């Protein structure tokens, strides 16, 4: 335990005094690094954002913004962290800090260090490429509203990507997990869209050329429990077999909320996010395998649109800060009925690979969920990966219904995956979230589609069936009748979106 340490702003600091459940935020603040703030303690506001040096998958390092309120500090053993204080000082501002300051991007200033870290991550993103003439930005303001009578609704479903990038290539989604209550965001956006390229002598930019720190096997024992980062999957499942109450944690974006808001503590927390066996991201001949330890951001980056349904899902899944830590494995592991990944993965026909000391087994995702937050996974099993069969269905969509477009929990989420040949629906898989105690397949609707021509009449008939799938309830997010209505509306909207494409392709 004595050798545990974290490099913060270039300085090695011992972890002594930290317990198994101490968050990185509390640890930083306890070490008088008070730039990062607690705004919500559940990864919703981003006031706690800091930068972590993570592998870019190509031998170099990516400065990655994370919610320090959710990450157990022990998970950062051996890692490099940079906070707003480390980026610059009032006398010597970092370029991002300077842009934000002069643009009027801070009022009360409490959220600002978090914004700075999220913006800095985007500043250092290697594939951030300026548009030639800033056209992407200008596109937002059509000269003639009537002329661009776009029939594909932009207000829902997929994010309108073109409108959310600056002329400097800045992706506004990088700030989707940061809340500001004062400014109304316009000056922050202006600052973000005005940042340039790192200077030649920028040490943080230079750091990207060297490898990120390797994961360090860690054991931390304290009064509140143990935190262990095993070196291998074998060690991890052994630990799990010996400690059935242990909590396996990857990004800790869900567990961190339990710890902070509901005071949960576990006798043993096992970090699995950096296990090499959970890091797959491979296209095989007949399936795509995504390791359960792969962050959503990493999956988004590597898949690069090759699975259109997931490409639609990713930007709508929580925020960039969360996606930088959260994993598909974790989203399935919690068994939540309102996770966003299950409806998409159900539509893709995914299978779950479970590993234990006894070996591995593969479970169809639609047989994985057994009840409210209950699954077939045994306490001694880990989700090792998710397998998606290939080829993919050709006509897909992911619809998320929520109050807020960025970073909200679904009222209802629907994944559609259809194959349509010569105008006839030959296969249909529809995954639903938010309408029952578990995510589920809309099997009656699927049956109502297969073999039918993909026409408005079929879509309407299917919508009527979809309306009655599941048993949605009323809560503070939505009423049960809205949830039901959204199912049928999603089918109609899906038809509207796809029928146009069909006219072209069929």
């Amino acid at each position, binding site marked *: 335990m004595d050798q545990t340490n974290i490099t913060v702003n270039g300085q090695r600091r011992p972890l002594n005094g930290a317990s198994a459940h101490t968050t990185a935020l509390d640890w930083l603040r306890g070490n*008088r690094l008070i*730039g990062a*703030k*607690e*705004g*919500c303690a*559940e990864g*919703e506001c981003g006031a706690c954002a800091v930068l972590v040096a993570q592998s870019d998958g190509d031998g170099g390092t990516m400065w990655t913004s994370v919610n320090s309120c959710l990450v157990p500090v022990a998970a950062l053993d051996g890692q490099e962290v940079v906070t*707003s*204080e480390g980026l*610059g*000082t009032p006398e010597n*501002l*970092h370029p991002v800090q300077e842009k934000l*300051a*002069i*643009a*009027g*991007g*801070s*009022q*009360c200033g*409490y*959220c*600002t*260090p978090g914004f700075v870290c999220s913006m800095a991550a985007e500043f250092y993103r290697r594939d951030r490429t300026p548009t030639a003439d800033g056209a992407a930005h200008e596109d*937002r303001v059509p000269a003639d*509203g*009537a002329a661009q*009578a*776009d029939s594909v*609704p*932009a*207000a829902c479903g997929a994010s309108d990507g073109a409108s959310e990038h600056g002329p400097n290539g800045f992706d506004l989604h990088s700030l989707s997990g940061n*809340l*500001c*209550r004062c400014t*109304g*965001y*316009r*000056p922050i*956006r202006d600052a973000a869209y005005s940042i340039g390229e790192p200077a030649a002598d920028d040490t943080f930019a230079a750091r990207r050329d060297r490898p990120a720190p390797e994961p360090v096997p860690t054991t931390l024992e304290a009064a509140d429990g143990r935190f262990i980062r095993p070196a291998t999957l074998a060690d991890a499942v052994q630990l799990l077999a010996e400690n059935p109450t242990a909590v396996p944690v990857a990004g800790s974006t869900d567990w961190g909320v339990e710890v902070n*808001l509901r005071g949960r503590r576990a006798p043993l927390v096992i970090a699995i996010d950096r296990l090499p066996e959970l890091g797959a991201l491979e296209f095989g001949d007949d399936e795509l395998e995504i390791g359960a330890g792969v962050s959503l951001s990493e999956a988004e980056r590597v898949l690069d649109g090759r699975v259109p349904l997931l490409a639609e899902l990713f930007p709508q899944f929580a925020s960039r800060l969360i996606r930088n830590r959260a994993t598909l494995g974790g989203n399935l592991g919690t068994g939540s009925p309102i996770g966003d990944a299950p409806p998409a993965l159900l539509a893709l026909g995914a299978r779950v690979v479970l590993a234990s000391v006894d070996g591995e087994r593969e479970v169809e995702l639609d047989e994985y969920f057994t009840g409210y937050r209950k699954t077939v996974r045994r306490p001694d099993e880990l989700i090792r990966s998710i397998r998606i069969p290939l080829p993919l269905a050709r006509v897909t969509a992911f619809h998320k*219904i929520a*109050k*807020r*477009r*960025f970073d909200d929990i679904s009222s209802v989420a629907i994944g559609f995956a259809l194959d349509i040949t010569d105008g006839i629906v030959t296969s249909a898989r529809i995954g639903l979230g938010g309408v029952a105690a578990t995510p589920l397949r809309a099997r009656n609707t699927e049956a109502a589609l297969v073999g039918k021509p993909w026409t408005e009449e079929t879509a309407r008939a299917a919508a009527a069936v979809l*309306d009655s799938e599941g048993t949605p*309830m*009323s*809560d*503070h*997010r*939505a*009423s049960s*009748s*809205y949830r039901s209505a959204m199912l*049928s509306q999603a089918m109609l*909207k899906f038809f509207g979106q796809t029928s146009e494409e069909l006219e072209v392709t069929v």
Partner: protein
Amino acid sequence: MSTLSQRPEVPVVGKPEPHESAAGHVTGAALYTDDIAISRADTLTAWPVQAPHAHALVKALRTEPALDVPGVVRVLTAADVPGVNDSGVRGDEPLFPTEVMYYGHAVCWVLGETQEAARLGAEAVEVDYQPLPSLITVPEAIEAGSYQGAHRITRRADADAALAAAPRVFSGVTEFSGQEHFYLETMASLAYYDEGGQLYIQAGTQHPSETQEIVAHVLGLSNNEVTVQCLRMGGGFGGKEMQPHGLAAIAAIGTKLTGRPVRLRLNRTQDMTMTGKRHGFYVTWQAGFDNDGKILALKATLTADGGWSLDLSEPVLARALCHLDNAYFIPALEADGRVAKTNKTSQTAFRGFGGPQGVFVIEDILGRCAPALGIDPADLRRRNFYTAGQSTPYGQPVRHPERMHDIWSQLLEDSGFAARSAQIEAFNASNPNLKRGLAMTPIKFGISFNVAAFNQAGALVLVYKDGSVLINHGGAEMGQGLHTKMLQVAATALGVERSAVRLAPTRTDKVPNTSATAASTGADLNGGAVKNACDQIQERMAVVAGGMLGVNPSDVRFSQGRVTGLGVFGKELTFAEVAQAAYMQRVQLSASGYYRTEGLHWDPEAWFGSPFKYFAYGAAATEVEVDGFTGAYRTRRVDIVHDVGDSLSPMIDIGQIEGGFVQGAGWLTLEDLRWDTSDGEGRGRLLTQAAGTYKLPSFSEMPEEFNVTLFDRAHEDGVIYGSKAVGEPPLMLAFSVREALRQAVGAFGPGGYEIELASPATPEAVFWALTEAKQLATPATATSASAPERAPVLSGS
């Protein structure tokens, strides 16, 4: 032009400047209360024991189990209160209650060596409750006749007779919920004994003087034994006007009993479940119009949801009643205002302070009735604007009504309103599933505290021998840029460079008896006081400089750090040289400044007078696009023309306008406070009690195009350097978002009907409204779906 409003030739005010702490904000170097607290050794943490009942008697409180938890130092209970066990100004807020009045009410507090110890200690405290019947919703309170505070009626002419004679009469119920402040920095206090042995409190408070008074009163001390400092706040928005006091008192009791520093920082859920919010209202109304759309009469009953204690509910209600007219002349009005007492958090000040609730009513009426009247909503609004010579229903002459007309005309032009309206009509005609709406709404907002006594302020300005300047004033900085403006005011008034002036933290031992930084008055009041102090010093320095330059003191000019004499060529002094000379001549270089707002009077019994120094005006045009499948929408463009007088600090003012607008849009469209109204065990519990369930506007709600213009030629006589207050009025420009949504919803239907829209206008609310509009279009094909009642909600997530 008054000397107060007159600017020198080269003023520092009026220049765009970023926030004075911007460099500290972006680097994390700027300190907030808890940053200071955790850096102090030996600090204890306080943690509440919150009751799990909406209404109950505390039958027994066993604190011993908490003391067995390692690290727990003490449990604070009513027995520990040295002075008065009450944290309110009305004597209705026991700090340690024997009767739990809302779900989450803190019954005692645990002090621990660490936060973890205090938290576990609080879990260990055993409390026996005897549950009592509770009232959660306003209709329940009305049914039970549960009210608190004064019942107010505002009346002009005979509204009943005017309604009876009106050609067109509409009636309805308008119900809208409150709003959580969600300042990013939750409530925080730190108490300790300072080097001089006095009780020192660092707190996030908009009203340091009242925090000082309440702490003194709870601890049985006199005010001079307690000093409160507010370095800065991570947002306030009114939420820190009243409610930090009791929390600071808890920390102070802890310090008194243990001798150690005590920090109290609510986490987000504690803050949301324990502290007050914007008042929701339940309103019934009748409105009469003539055939040209002129309002003839309005009759309304407004019931504010006050929560469990009175707090600021009476003045909030007063401001609502004083803003029912918004920018419109209503010849006959009768409005009845009451504060319901419910078993919820004690609702309190929130940016606009009742004004938004009053404006809501009239804007809702106009937006709803316009289609039925067959008049374009923007035109309907303009037709009813005040004109010269008219007065408000409470008797205040409306000064500068022409500004409202000018602002409206400018906005029509700047926003390209007519052309875009036509484009939208074409767009809507060709898009069955996507509709756009473009709406304009005005704001007229009265500036000053309704209570005349609050309209005063003090400042302390120190000039040192080297010519550097240090200012103190009574206003608190919560992000609104008050300190930036005060630095600019002081530099302008003394005639020095902005860089020569520093500002020291707001403290009750520097400037006493201050008013809350509230009601948008921070810059007006404290600016007046800072300038007054600077004027005194400059007057004395002018005598010294006059002697040095050989001119009459009245011919000395101070500008940009240089001191010159009229008609004196080739000789100029620096401000520092004059300061040094003044010291040598034993001339006082410091001054205490004071300001009181002139010309205010208000009779709350007769509901008559001129409570406001002036009105701030503005208007906004908002375009939205609504998805007919889901009710989801986005804000495509917002144009604002707003009157801030001659701006003291344009970048700050634009920031306030934009931020206020988006915060208002959040209240009206997104932020959804839900309480458990069921009869189950969770009755009265706030269901949306964290950031995961209570959603603020994020980047996705920001208007895609956002143009803010400060109204030109807007000098306001009699106010600091010709400026106007800006904090609250722009929030109410967000009604344009709600009205644009209503118009887009209406475009799904046949037109000509009243369009009702629930509040907040979430995607679900918009969906039900447009579903209803569609059903009006094709009554034969009613869909199976219809809007549910706001059903009791049972689950937590």
